[in-house]
C-alpha cells in the first residue's frame, strides 16, 4: 500500500515541459503564419492580380481549405496554452499591473501588453477568421469590398497593431526564455524587435489603404 503510493509519487510530471514546448512551438508557428499571411494580403499593394494569383495558388493546392482551419486550431491551442500564464483573478491582474507601474520596467510592461493584446486577438482574430474562411475563395475584390464598407476598416485598424505587437513581443520573448537572446545581445535584439513591429504595422497600413483605394 505505502509502496504503491511511493512509486506513484516518484515519476516526475513532464507535463510542464511539454506544455512549454508546445506553447513556444505554437507561438512560433503562428509567427511564421502571420508572416506568410502578410505576404498574401500585402501582395495587393502590387495590384489585385498579384493577390488573386497567390490566393488562387493556395486555393488550388488545397492549402486554404485545410490550412485555414488548421491555423484556427493552432490559434486555439496556443490560446489554451498561453492562457495558463495569464492571471484570470482580478486580484492578480491588479498585482501585476501595479507591479509594472511601480517598477517602471519595459520588459514587464511588454508582458502586460502581450497578455492584453492576446485577449483582443482572441476575439477579433476568431471573428476575422470565421468571416474569411466561410466566404472562400479569397479574392482581392471581396477583401476590398469588406474594407471599403467602413466597419471592417476600423476593425483591422484595431486588430493590426494588436497582432503586430503581440507577434513582435512574442518573438523577443521566445528568444529571451530559451536563451537565444543573451545578456550581451539583448539590447540589439530589442531594437530589432521594435523595428520589426513598426515595419509590419506600416506595411499593414499601406495594405489597408491600398484596399480602400482599390477599384475592381
Amino acid at each position, binding site marked *: 500500500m505505502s509502496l504503491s503510493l511511493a512509486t506513484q509519487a516518484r515519476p516526475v510530471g513532464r507535463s510542464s*515541459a511539454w506544455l512549454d514546448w508546445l506553447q513556444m512551438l505554437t507561438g512560433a508557428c503562428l509567427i511564421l503564419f502571420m508572416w506568410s499571411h502578410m505576404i498574401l494580403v500585402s501582395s495587393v499593394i502590387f495590384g489585385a492580380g498579384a493577390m488573386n494569383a497567390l490566393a488562387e495558388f493556395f486555393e488550388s493546392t488545397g492549402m486554404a481549405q485545410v490550412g485555414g482551419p488548421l491555423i484556427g486550431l493552432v490559434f486555439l491551442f496556443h490560446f489554451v496554452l498561453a492562457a495558463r500564464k495569464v492571471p484570470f483573478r482580478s486580484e492578480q491582474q491588479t498585482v501585476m499591473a501595479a507591479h*509594472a507601474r511601480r517598477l517602471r520596467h519595459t520588459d*514587464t510592461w511588454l508582458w502586460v501588453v502581450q497578455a492584453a493584446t492576446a485577449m483582443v486577438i482572441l476575439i477579433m482574430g476568431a471573428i476575422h477568421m470565421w468571416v474569411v474562411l466561410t466566404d472562400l475563395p479569397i479574392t482581392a475584390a471581396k477583401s476590398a469590398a469588406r474594407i471599403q464598407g467602413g466597419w471592417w476598416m476600423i476593425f483591422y485598424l484595431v486588430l493590426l497593431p494588436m497582432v503586430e505587437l503581440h507577434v513582435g513581443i512574442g518573438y523577443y520573448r521566445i528568444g*529571451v526564455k530559451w536563451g537565444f537572446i543573451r*545578456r550581451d545581445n539583448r539590447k540589439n535584439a530589442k531594437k530589432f524587435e521594435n523595428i520589426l513591429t513598426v515595419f509590419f504595422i506600416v506595411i499593414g497600413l499601406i495594405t489597408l489603404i491600398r484596399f480602400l483605394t482599390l477599384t475592381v
Partner: protein
Amino acid sequence: MSRILTFNIFRYNPQDPGTPPRMDRFMLDETDRMTLFIALNRIREEQDPSLMFDFCCRAGICGACGMVINGRPGLACHTKTKDLPETITLMPLPAFKLVGDLSVDTGTWFREMYQKVESWVHTSKEFDPTALEERMDNGLAEEIYELERCIECGCCVAACGTALIRPDFLGAVGLNRIARFILDPRDERTDTEYFEIVGNDQGIFGCMGLLGCEDVCPKGLPLQDQLGMLRRKMAFTALKGLVGKHKHKH
C-alpha cells in the same frame, strides 16, 4: 547646494494592530556622500526611534537591506541620496512576509528555497582528511563563483511579476542556485534529478522571461543567461525522456 530631502516611508507594525498601515513623511538635510543607510539611521535616532529597517554589513555584501526605493527593489546601503530626486519613497520588498515598516522576513523564504532545491553538494564520496583535495580547473572555479556571488537579498524575487502572482515560484535566485550546482562537478545529481526539482511551473517553466530579476540584481548576476540555459537543458531532458540518466559535465 545642500538639499532638504523628503522621505515617504511605509509604516506598519503587525504587532500593533491599533495602528493601520500608512505612509509617514520625514524631512532630512542631505549631507555629503550620504547613503540611505546614513539617512535611515539618522531618522531613527533623531526623529522616530520605532522605525524598523534592516542593515547588517552596510557594505553591499550581506543582502539584508533590500527595499523598494522609488519603485525599484535595491540595496539601501549602497544607494546614494545624491543619485535620487528630492522626494524618496521607501517601501518594504513585496513577496516576503512583512516584519514591520521596511523590514521583511527573507530568512523563512530562503530556507524553504534551500530545502526545495536541496542547496548542497550531493555526493557519494566520504571526505578523507588524509588525502589531497580533488583538483579543479581554476576557470571552472571562477565560473562557479560567478553564480555563487548571489547575496540572497531578494530583490530579484520582488522584481518578478511571476513571483508576485505565484507564491510557490522558485524565483531567479532559486533557479540560479540550481544552475550553480549543475556547473559543479562535485555535485553528482543527474539532469533527471535536477529536472525533478525545477522541471515544472514552480521552477523554470514558470518563468515568463520578464527579466525584472536581471535588471535589478544589485550584484549583476548573469540571471538571464542562466535561466535560458536552464530552460533549454530541462526542456531537452524532458525530450530525452528517461534515457538521459547521466549527468553531462564539461
